């Protein structure tokens, strides 16, 4: 496994990039279907869960400085539990990456290349991911850093839709049934799966202390941006309409009637396609790093990346339709609670872990 290869800036860019992908394009739909105009409350709740998860993993990384996630888990938990945890983490990263590729492919097919077969579009994305993975964590971090300006640019393009916003669409506020809020929590939590990347990429940074300090602001930024996007979608389109649209954020952009900007729809879609590939790449990279750490470099890096790329392609093709992908995403949300909250708590509370000297 490579060490000390990511700058703090690259690490921060990588975390942010992993959140803004295909998930946010469709997330407001499920939130509004579950909780109407109060959907943003679910994002707020799951954002808090993500920050808690991030803080738990930060604590874990400080207790075991310089160790990879598999090494930490093996030190803290008994061997069978550690093996199972690593396997579950690997599955989570692979399925998340494959599902993300599937959704990005669907967006590309729907809006940009309607007649191209699904496998052809997905193959292009997988080839790109394979290419980027050759550079390891540093290569992926650099790509995220270089494309970081695309995110504010795409947000700027969304802002003109504000002219159609109606404050009454957000009212009456806080009238939703709490059970509805919790039913949609897994779906929202899936979108916040980036806290699982903290223990994977933090040990790769040149200055883990500085990177650790940069983690929470990044997570808070992501949570705030998600809440704002959900509020914007409901204020502009109304909760009923948002719950009917497949990709409400794209509809939001299409509803812009400002001259010139309204003609940039293809530009916006291409821009978001590039943005949406980044989470696929980052989670694939996390899978490679995790396996690399678990196997302690016994398998060549190149072989690993090809294995991960092939698996991603197969997992993506195995999802027969987008409805299945959405169902998988829902279950991944539950998986996130298990791996994002329960696992670090178990590792921190484990008597085996407590015997280790603390490096705080």
């Amino acid at each position, binding site marked *: 496994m490579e060490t000390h290869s990511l700058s703090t800036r690259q690490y921060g860019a990588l975390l942010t990039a992993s959140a803004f992908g295909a998930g946010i394009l469709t997330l407001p739909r499920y939130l509004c279907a579950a909780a109407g105009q109060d959907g943003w409350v679910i994002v707020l709740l799951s954002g808090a869960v993500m920050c808690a998860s991030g803080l738990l993993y930060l604590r874990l990384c400080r207790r075991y400085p310089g160790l990879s996630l598999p090494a930490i888990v093996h030190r803290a938990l008994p061997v069978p539990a550690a093996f199972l945890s690593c396997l579950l983490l690997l599955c989570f990263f692979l399925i998340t990456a494959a599902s993300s590729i599937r959704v990005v492919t669907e967006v590309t097919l*729907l*809006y*940009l*290349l*309607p*007649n*191209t*077969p699904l496998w*052809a*579009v997905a*193959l*292009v994305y997988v*080839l*790109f991911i*394979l*290419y980027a993975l*050759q*550079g390891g964590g540093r290569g992926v971090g650099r790509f995220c850093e270089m494309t970081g300006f695309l995110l504010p640019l795409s947000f700027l393009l969304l802002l003109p839709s504000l002219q*159609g916003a*109606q404050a*009454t*669409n957000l*009212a*009456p506020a806080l*009238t939703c049934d709490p059970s509805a809020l919790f039913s949609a929590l897994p779906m929202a939590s899936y979108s916040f799966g980036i806290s699982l990347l903290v223990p994977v990429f933090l040990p790769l940074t040149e200055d883990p202390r500085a990177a650790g300090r940069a983690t929470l602001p990044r997570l808070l930024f992501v949570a705030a941006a998600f809440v704002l996007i959900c509020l914007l979608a409901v204020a502009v*389109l*109304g*909760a*009923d*309409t948002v719950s*009917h649209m497949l990709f409400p954020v794209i*509809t939001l952009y*299409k*509803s*812009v*009637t400002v001259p010139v900007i*309204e003609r940039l*729809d293809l530009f916006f879609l291409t821009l978001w396609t590039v943005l949406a590939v980044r989470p696929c790449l980052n989670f694939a990279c996390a899978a490679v790093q995790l396996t690399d750490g678990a196997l302690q470099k016994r398998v060549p890096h*190149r072989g690993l990346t090809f294995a991960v790329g092939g698996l991603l392609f197969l997992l993506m093709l195995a999802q027969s339709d987008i409805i299945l992908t959405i169902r998988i995403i829902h279950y991944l949300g539950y998986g996130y609670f298990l791996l994002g909250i329960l696992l670090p708590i178990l590792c921190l509370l484990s008597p085996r872990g407590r015997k280790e000297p603390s490096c705080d």
Partner: protein
Amino acid sequence: MRLKPLLFAAAALAMLILGDIWDSRDIDDLAIYSSEGYDLQDGEVSLHVTGVSSAFLEEGKAKAIVLASEGENLGQSRYDRSLTMPDEIMYGTLRTVLFGKALAQSGIREYVDINFRGPQTRLGAHVAVAGGNCQEIYNAETPTEDIGTHLSEILHSASESSFVPTVTLKDVALTLFSDDWGDALLPLLVPSELGVEIGGLAVFDGDRMVAEVTGWEALALVLLRGDGARGYIPFSANLPGGKVDQGSLFLTAKRRVRARMAEGVPQIELEILLTGALVGHAGEEAITENPQNRAAVERQLAAEMETLCRAALRRVQEEFRCDPINITRFAKPLYRKNPPEDIRDIIDDAVIHVRVRCDIRRLGEVS
């Protein structure tokens, strides 16, 4: 062997080739339409389309052609059209969508759906109702440009100077998909000597047209709806001293809504503010002579508009029984518990007060 350059080359090649194999299109194979109209004739949907395409160039100038197809339903009429003109339709260039009056009265949901569902369609395309049928509109002779461009320009500019709302496909879809947006109020197009003109407004209840309003009543409805409409309003006012001044004002309407619940009944207060400038006058004494004259004109115009708005409001509540003035969404927050199934239903029982104020801010360069 260095794998990275090879992978880069493969990825670049894949992007170039895969994108071109299945989705390359020659522009000659595309039907680039600027307007699409739907008519219902003798129980059959008749789909009339006007398009501007490079295939129809005549002496270097794009010429509009009108294509018509018929069928028992939308699907069949599309099939019929595909036999006449099999070119792939580019909905991204669609600028106007028209509904024939008979079809609008029977319901427009499926026709809005087909446009809203398509990922290529511009949601900013303008929507209107044809007073008779769309074919009459499309066959109208226009003096300068083709009918597709003419329609787009009329509907686009309407709200800028004639107190007619500019309604887009997104606006109509929102009124159909949710109860957050009131009901649609669409421009009504009729053929005229100069091609096509806006003859009034079509009032919708859900997806069905229920009434047609013209003249001052249409103006009152637009003021009540308050979509930032603007335009010319003539005035004739009695000034202090028994003199009369007549003229024209260019005014912008803004609306403020307050809603509260009193004894289980929503009370809605509408305040309409008309601000603008004097364009011209032809009276015995100019309203510019002294401030009292200006105040008198403002007061009398506000009173006239208030009377018009109250009459229109009565018709909305007693006859149309829908929400073309888009106010029920303000009542929605009042129902924190047990909201009505469709918030627009409260329009019958709500107590609505309307107040109009007029503020002539500029009097021009001549005093």
